[in-house]
């Protein structure tokens, strides 16, 4: 038995219902807990095994070794290459990495905010000072 206008009931009632569109960014739904957002690295637990760097499908992680014996590392994270796949979190046996579920609005107009360096403050300071001396041959070896 065929009818003309089978959707009539639903369509007519929609005139009196609120539209389902979410007016982002003024209205936001709460983030699910398992949402895969920006990567965060905890420098205290890292042993420098570089499993995460090896397993990343997009080459988004880079570990810069400052001093292997005393475990001073700086992790460079290229957010524009990251596919948020979560593999690095599972490759790390010490739980240094996690993908945040609150920090996921990562759009930017320039490239600089996309390259994030994680580490202890003194280690990053050390790297910045190294980079500021351009004719030091060791700097070229470290910062590429």
């Amino acid at each position, binding site marked *: 038995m065929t009818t003309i206008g089978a959707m009539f009931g639903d369509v007519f009632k929609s005139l009196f219902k609120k*539209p389902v569109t979410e007016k982002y960014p003024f209205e936001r739904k709460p983030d699910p807990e398992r949402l895969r957002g920006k990567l965060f690295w905890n420098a205290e637990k890292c042993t420098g095994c570089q499993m995460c760097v090896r397993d990343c499908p997009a080459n988004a992680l880079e570990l810069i070794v400052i001093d292997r014996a005393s475990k001073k590392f700086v992790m460079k994270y290229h957010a524009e290459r990251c596919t948020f796949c979560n593999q690095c979190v599972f490759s790390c046996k010490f739980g240094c990495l996690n993908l945040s579920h609150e920090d996921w609005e990562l759009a930017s107009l320039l490239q600089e905010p996309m390259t994030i360096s994680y580490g202890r403050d003194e280690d990053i300071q050390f790297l910045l000072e190294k980079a500021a001396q351009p004719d030091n041959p060791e700097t070229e070896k470290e910062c590429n």
Partner: protein
Amino acid sequence: MSISLPPLVSMLVFPAGIFLMMLGLAYEFVDRKLVARYQNRIGPRWFQPLADMIKLLAKEEIIPTGVNKGLFIFLPILGVTAALTSALYIPMLGFAPAFSFRGDLVVVIYLLSVMTICLGLAGANTVDRFSLIGATRTLTQLFSYEAPFLLALLTPALAAGSWQISEINTYAHGNLWMILTQPIGFLVALIALMGKLELPPFDAPEAETEIVSGALTEYSGRGLALFRLGKDVELVIGLTLIAAFYLGGLANPLDFILKTLGLLLVVALLQSLFARLRIDQTVGMWWRVGALLALVQLLIIVIARLL
């Protein structure tokens, strides 16, 4: 109610001209907003059609090779002009028509079809396959709904005993609403209006998923803006005619707004309910069902008058 304005003002400002164009844009907004609400989404804001027009006018008009340049530029202008001119004979906003003479119903219907013919010719004027198919479909559709549309507007004229729109308007105002005495005619007129304006489900000539944009594929910039404006103006004029004939005449602006917006509510509902009909299904439906219904209505009126 009637106001008298010098002819130049009535052509350029009210009721044709700038006022009608703005009213057309406003009705397009209401139509799009209603369709969006029926589909459970938000829809555009009030200035969207105006912004579209301004954007299109600011864009470059690209004239493809292989077309007749004069025709390409002239046809949109002709279409819009015909649509705007027809507004001089209808009771716009409830006031008496600016010009009125015996037989102006036929002139108005003719002017409304000029727009569709211009669309068909504009599509035939290119080398592009999509436009050719769109033009063929437009003209095929013109042949199918034109006769029922005319008949459906004719039956109130018969009941009123005159071919002059202002007299039919007065007759409708004074008597029982013709939607109750001639329901079949009302239905045919409303659906034929949707066919004329190429609204879904009769938008085969402009089917986005099959032939890009039909006859309008090659148009951009000013030509496209004028064609779209012409369609909006036709929407207003069509709704006014049907409201004036079937919904008890238009006596004042408030009456006009309420009745035409009520009709627009129904038109938007019909737009969202159906899938698109293929062109052969459209023709089949009109020549089997539409024309028959209109003829039946005509017969009823003729018999009623003879009795």
